[in-house]
C-alpha cells in the first residue's frame, strides 16, 4: 500500500534529520532561560492545584494526535488525583514547548518537499500520517527532556506547596493512553 511506502520513506528522512535537530534542542534546553520557561509552565499547574486544594497523585504530560494532525506540537498537561484518568476534574492545560515547534515545522517542510518529489499527489490523509511519523521522534525527545527536568521541578516552591500523595509521580505518554513513568517520590 502506498501509505506504508510513504510513512517508511518519511521515517527514513526524519531519522536523517532528527540527529542534528536533537542536538539543537539539547543545546536550547541547556540554557537556564529555556529550563525556567518549562518549569514555569508546570509550576503554574501546581499552583492551580494548590489553590484548588487538590491532592495530586500524578502529573501527566501527554501527546495529542489532534494537535499533530494540524501540524502543531502541543501537549496536554494534567495533575490527576488518585482516580488517575478517571479524575473528572484534573487541573489541566496545554503546552507548546519552545523550540520543538520550530524544529518539527522545519522537519515537516523538508520531509514533505522530498516526498512530493518522489510521490505524486500526496493527499491530506497521507500528510496526517507523515506528520505522525515526524512527531514520534519529538515525543521521544520531549519525554527525555521532562525526565531531565523532573528533579529540578521537584525542588520548586510550587511543587512543595502542592498537596501530594506519598507516591506522587510524573509520567509521559499518549492522551488517556499508555505512558512511561519518568519520576516518582521515593520513600524516605
Amino acid at each position: 500500500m502506498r501509505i506504508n511506502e510513504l510513512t517508511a520513506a518519511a521515517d527514513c528522512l526524519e531519522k536523517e534529520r532528527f540527529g542534528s535537530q536533537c542536538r539543537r534542542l539539547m543545546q536550547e534546553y541547556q540554557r537556564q532561560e529555556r529550563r525556567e520557561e518549562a518549569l514555569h509552565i508546570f509550576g503554574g499547574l501546581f499552583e492551580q492545584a494548590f489553590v484548588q486544594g487538590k491532592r495530586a497523585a500524578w502529573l501527566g504530560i501527554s501527546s495529542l494526535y489532534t494537535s499533530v494532525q494540524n501540524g502543531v506540537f502541543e501537549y496536554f498537561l494534567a495533575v490527576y488525583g488518585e482516580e488517575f484518568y478517571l479524575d473528572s476534574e484534573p487541573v489541566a492545560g496545554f503546552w507548546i514547548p519552545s523550540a520543538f515547534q520550530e524544529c518539527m515545522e522545519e522537519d515537516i517542510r523538508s520531509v514533505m518537499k522530498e516526498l512530493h518529489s518522489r510521490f505524486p499527489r500526496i493527499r491530506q490523509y497521507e500528510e496526517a500520517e507523515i506528520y505522525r511519523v515526524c512527531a514520534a521522534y519529538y515525543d521521544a525527545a520531549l519525554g527525555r527532556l521532562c525526565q531531565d527536568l523532573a528533579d529540578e521541578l521537584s525542588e520548586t516552591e510550587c511543587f512543595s506547596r502542592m498537596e501530594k500523595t506519598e507516591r506522587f509521580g510524573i509520567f509521559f505518554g499518549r492522551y488517556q493512553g499508555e505512558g512511561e513513568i519518568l519520576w516518582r517520590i521515593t520513600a524516605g
Partner: protein
Amino acid sequence: MADNGRMRYFLLTDSGRNPFPEIGGWSQALDIRKMNRREYRELPSSFQLNMRTGMDHILPDILVAPFLLLSEPAMHVVSFYDPEIPWCFAVLFGDSGKECASYFCPILEEEDCVVKEAYREGEIIRLDSKKMKGLPLFWIRVKDRKKTVIRMDLAESLLMRHAVGMELKATIMEE
C-alpha cells in the same frame, strides 16, 4: 506557552484534498430535514446512496458531506462515548455497480451554543461553554448550516485507531 482548560472541541471538516467518494442521490433517498432527534423515526432505518469514485479513491472512516457518515469501526468508537446516539444504516453503491460499502449515519443532538455575534465567515467558531452539555459529538448550526463538533477525547480515540477522513478545525471556548 500554556493554555488553560482541559477539554477542547473541533469542527469536523473536509478540505476536499482527499480522494473520497462523492455521495449522490441522497435527496431521493431521504428527507434530510428530518435528520434530527425529534423526527428521525420518520426516516427509513436504512437507505441506499450512490457514490461517485475516482481512480485512486479510498473509502474513509468518516465522511462529512452531504451529512455525517461513519464506518462500522468508527461507529463503535462513537457509541462507546455516547450510547444514546440513534443510527441509520446506509449502503453506498459505486457507479460501476461493482463496489459497495456500508456506513452508519448518526442522528446527533443539535446544541445552540455558537456565539453568533462573534462569528464572521471564515473565522474560528466560538462556542459558549455554559450552553454546552458536554456531548462528545453534536451538531451546531452556523448560518443555517449544520456542522459537526467533536470533543477532543473522542477525536483522540478515533485518531489513535487511525480513523481515515478526520480533518479537524479548532474552535474557541468561551467561559
